[in-house]
């Protein structure tokens, strides 16, 4: 009897400890661990708000696999729409239009986010790309003008190092505005996939994949590579037109999709081309017809996982303009794409879901984390295992989507 009481007391005590520590985990502060080794997920989150009044936040969390990620009383509030990019051990939050400021964040020794510095630029940033852990690129673009500015940013000093005026590519008599679909630096070459914008007709000439290749840092235009096997690369408000594999090869994303915003419908199938490591041309022997492999789906997002596997968001219906990125249209499925064998497999356990502007995802240890939104269930982070092509619901997102998934180590850069 006495022994039992003793045990019960221990049980109660343990339960209380568990409860208290459970509460702690829910709070914004990280687990107390030594500096240096501690890593946390840093998320750029867009709260849905009400009737389009969304607000962006930067928040650090310990897990993506369980619990609830809430913005109630948490997260660093941002001005206006943002894009975000991780460079080295920092996350940069780039104002889109309301606020022409780029803020650099890192984790302190205890794993709390803080603003390390900021700089301002002049226009609307539509593209970005990492050069190395010390520097990155941003590109300003505007629909009213073909003229753009490429900024080279010092990620350590958090300041502009260089401003380069560019039109991406303008041949004589060409009146189209070239819209960037990402900035990719590899072996002293800058690759800029782009598409055509016309002030009256919108996004046009959708039947060719286009990449401008520059020597970097000299910024001499080497050439424009074109490929007629698929549509133009990339989509509006997204800068992931190319995806890099572990061996350094680039794979391109061509949506050929009205639902992804290309109202001038492409006659080409949605698919993937390759620019091999060390090359500056499309690999003529490689084309992955994703549309065929998924039974008519359109590729809207590609995340490289490893071992030739990638996870893709596929739009299942191409009937309505922009519907693929509309949150309230349940048109999207997730697939695992085998880039080497050019096969596709639908991910089990992920429902038909709504779309998102500039979808962000994180690949880590063979798994991909991505926001999945359904009308019935709201938004959650899903964990997709590429090897088994299965997805499972992870942390619940309270009326919000993740617009940037990152992982930082505590203690700064």
């Amino acid at each position, binding site marked *: 009897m006495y022994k039992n009481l003793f045990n019960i007391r221990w049980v109660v005590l343990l339960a209380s400890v568990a409860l208290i520590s459970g509460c702690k985990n829910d709070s*914004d502060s990280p687990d107390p661990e030594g500096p240096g080794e501690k890593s946390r997920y840093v998320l750029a989150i867009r*709260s*849905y*708000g*009400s*009737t*389009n*009044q969304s*607000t962006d*936040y930067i928040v650090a969390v310990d897990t993506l696999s369980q619990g609830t990620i*809430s*913005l*109630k*009383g*948490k*997260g*660093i*509030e941002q*001005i*206006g*729409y943002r894009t975000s990019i991780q460079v080295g051990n920092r996350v940069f939050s780039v104002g*889109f*239009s*309301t*606020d*022409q*400021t*780029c803020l650099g964040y890192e984790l302190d020794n205890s794993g709390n986010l803080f603003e390390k*510095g*900021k*700089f*301002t*630029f*002049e*226009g*609307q940033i539509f593209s970005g790309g990492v050069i190395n852990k010390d520097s990155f690129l941003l590109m300003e673009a*505007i*629909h*009213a*003008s*073909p*003229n753009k500015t490429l900024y080279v940013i010092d990620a350590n*000093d*958090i*300041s*502009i*190092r260089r401003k380069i*005026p560019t039109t991406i590519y303008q041949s004589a008599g060409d009146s189209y505005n070239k819209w960037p679909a990402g900035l990719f630096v590899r072996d002293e070459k800058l690759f800029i996939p782009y598409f055509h914008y016309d002030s*009256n007709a919108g996004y046009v000439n959708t039947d060719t994949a286009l990449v401008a290749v520059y020597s970097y840092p000299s910024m001499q235009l080497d050439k424009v590579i074109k490929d007629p096997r698929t549509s133009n690369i990339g989509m509006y408000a997204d800068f992931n037109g190319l995806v890099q594999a572990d061996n350094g090869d680039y794979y391109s994303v061509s949506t050929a999709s009205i639902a992804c915003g290309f109202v001038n419908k492409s006659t080409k199938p949605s698919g993937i081309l390759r620019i091999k490591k060390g090359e500056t041309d499309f690999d003529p022997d490689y084309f992955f017809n994703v549309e065929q492999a998924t039974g008519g789906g359109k590729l809207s997002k590609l995340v490289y996982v490893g071992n030739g596997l990638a996870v893709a968001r596929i739009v299942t219906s191409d009937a309505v303009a922009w519907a693929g990125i509309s*949150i*309230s249209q349940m048109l999207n499925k997730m697939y695992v794409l085998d880039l080497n064998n050019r096969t596709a497999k639908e991910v089990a356990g992920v429902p038909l879901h709504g779309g998102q502007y500039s979808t962000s995802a994180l690949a880590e240890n063979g798994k991909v984390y991505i926001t999945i939104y359904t*009308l*019935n*269930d*709201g938004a959650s982070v899903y964990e997709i295992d590429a090897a088994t092509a299965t997805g499972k619901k992870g942390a619940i997102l*309270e*009326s*919000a989507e993740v617009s940037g998934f990152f992982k930082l180590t505590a203690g700064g850069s």
Partner: protein
Amino acid sequence: MSKLYRWLILVIAIACCMPGFTQSVTGSLSGHVLSADGEALPGAVVTLAGADKNAVSEEKGTFTIPGVRPGSYELRVTMLGYKPLSKSVSVTAGRTTELEVRLEPDQVSLKEVVVAGKNQVQQAREQAFNVAAIDVKKLYNSSSDMNQILNRSTGIRIREDGGLGSNFTFSLNGFSGKQVKFFLDGVPMDNFGSSLTLNNIPANLVERVEIYKGVVPVTLGSDALGGAVNIITNQTNRSYLDASYTFGSFNTHRAALTGRYHDIERGFLVNGNLFHNYSDNSYKVDVEIPDPNTGKVNGLTKVRRFHDAYRSSTLMLEAGVTGKKFADRLMIGLTVSGNRKEVQTASIMNIVVGQAHSTDKTLMPSLKYLKENLFIKGLSLSAQASYNEGRVTTIDTSSRKYDWSGNYVVRTDPNLGEISGGKTHFTYSDKTAIGVANLGYEAGENSSFSFNYTQINFRRQGTDLYDKNATFKQPNILDKKVMGASYKINLLDSRWSTSVFAKYFILNTYTYNWDASVKIAAHNSKPGYGIATTYHVSPSAQLKASFENTYRMPESTEIVGDGISIIRNPGLLPEESTNVNLGILFNHAYGKHLVMLEAGGTYRNIHNLIRQQLAGLVTQYINQQSAASTGFETDLKYNYNNFINVGANLTYQNLINTTKYEKGASVVSDVYKDRIPNTPYLYGNFDAGIHFKNAGFKDGNLTINFWTSFVERYFLYWPSLGSSSTKLDIPRQVVHNAGITYAFSDNRYNLSLECRNLADAKVYDNFRLQKPGRALYLKLRYFIKS
């Protein structure tokens, strides 16, 4: 401007030539109403039985009844708290019969003698509606404009972008923008142009302002949702001239000339108002100036605004006849106004503008008709019509890129403007026809009917030299009709008064898609109804309750945008609101101590709330699904013997988002029941004054005033989201102001000095736009009346 001055000279010339203009066949009656011990009694009702004419005594107890046919009449004078008085008078053609009336206090019907009579401001306050009335006459020597005056009242917040002439939003109990309707002497001020707004109109033009919160009377034919503001210009029968000139900080100049010539005997009336506003708005702001090369920012720098000048001029002329058989008043008028406004920043202060500007010109002829006892006794008709042609040009064509120091670089890109990306030189013309008719019928002493019909037809068309804003290549048309009927009954010896009313709104819109290739027609019609009741518990205490279910049709700018900073939204739906208002009003004199207390509770439930949201560098009006507001407000005033006055008011309104599900989702929104962002919810005002009679000169009056406004901190984005230390907010704002006024020679000469924002507090509004710091204004005013 020189054109306007020429006009002015013409007005004065006309005014001077008027005597001897027509042959008189009537006489008139004028006099004083005094208490038994000789104090002037304003607010007494003077009736000339047999002639169906009446008047209300004015500030100094004076009254005038013009246009009386010769003969003998019975004059009746009544006033609450005094015994009614009857007296026979005779009127001679071409003569003014002068008389003095003394009223005896009525000790029997009232337990206490009411010392002060009720002027029109008090009468307005005592309506069954939830109404606030501001006596602007007391503020004629203040250099404040109507915005600044209204901002001191309960329930009202004026959100301003900056200094003189800046964009502003009027907010009433949490409702703002177009949800609150404005009237000038009962005429809806729709599309009156940006020169005839509350921040342009000088106080001297206005006699009083009635602010209807929630329920709006049928006579103001309108689809207001949050309430209505009726600006009532000088109603005196007398001729007068009021000239004032203000100058002050930031090179601010404001001149106003208002006058009236009224030949009562001949029944001829001319009103003239001329006002001019100018300011450089060159006040200092605290900004971040980035390094031009690295973009790095080193803290805040104090700089002067350098491209924010505003200039506006308005001439309002009106002439007509009074006291005729066919009309008590028939006036034709013309309003000419124009302004030029420079733009200093985009919707946030980081984006500096140095050349973009806009101009606005408006020409508006009008007609007003008023006749009481039309055909039969008790039937009255008032009708107003106006046609308004406005022309607004927005010019953003500069290739310069400015910084806050005023330096600029010329951008090589020929396509870029300063504000919205591409260059724009956009002109649109608005044509608005407004017709208002009010028919009233007094069925006996205690019940009355009233009917209103209002129609507003609006048309906007415009072109852009840079081929943007193509949507206005075709005319965008909005046609709105409002019909209303109400019945009012007084019971229990007029202690209990109730109005029931119904309204019907129709809106037809014809707009175009972005490139004007597809015409979009929409039709909306909605009914509204309500009740307002009030009970006088005692002569000094009154209870009020009102309820209304109503709609507001989206307005021109909300649907079609302005082509530059506001994006169009043709799919906007009417807003629906249910509002409930409860209030008490207490007004009592304890000897020389006068106490007034108003307190009220408000409830608003809104569906399809139309709200302006920031969309990048520009804004757009959208339908918020639903929101609800509960509020409380109180106003306390104390006056000792017209020597010392102290007042304070406080408003609390909790406007919350009641949209439970977003976009068809079945998951409850995390901002459900959160407070609507970027809306002040707790604010108040304090004022105190001291008044010395016979100071300096024999009849010199010296007044010293102090007033403070307070707005509690509020958030720009959803309050519940984000960590509190990082939330973007407008911090708590406390602004003190002081003024000193000296008037002499029967208030003919007036001098006043005002200091706003005494403590030079940093004041912000909207998306953290900084407003002026300490500023000084001196106003000189000359006033004469017949």
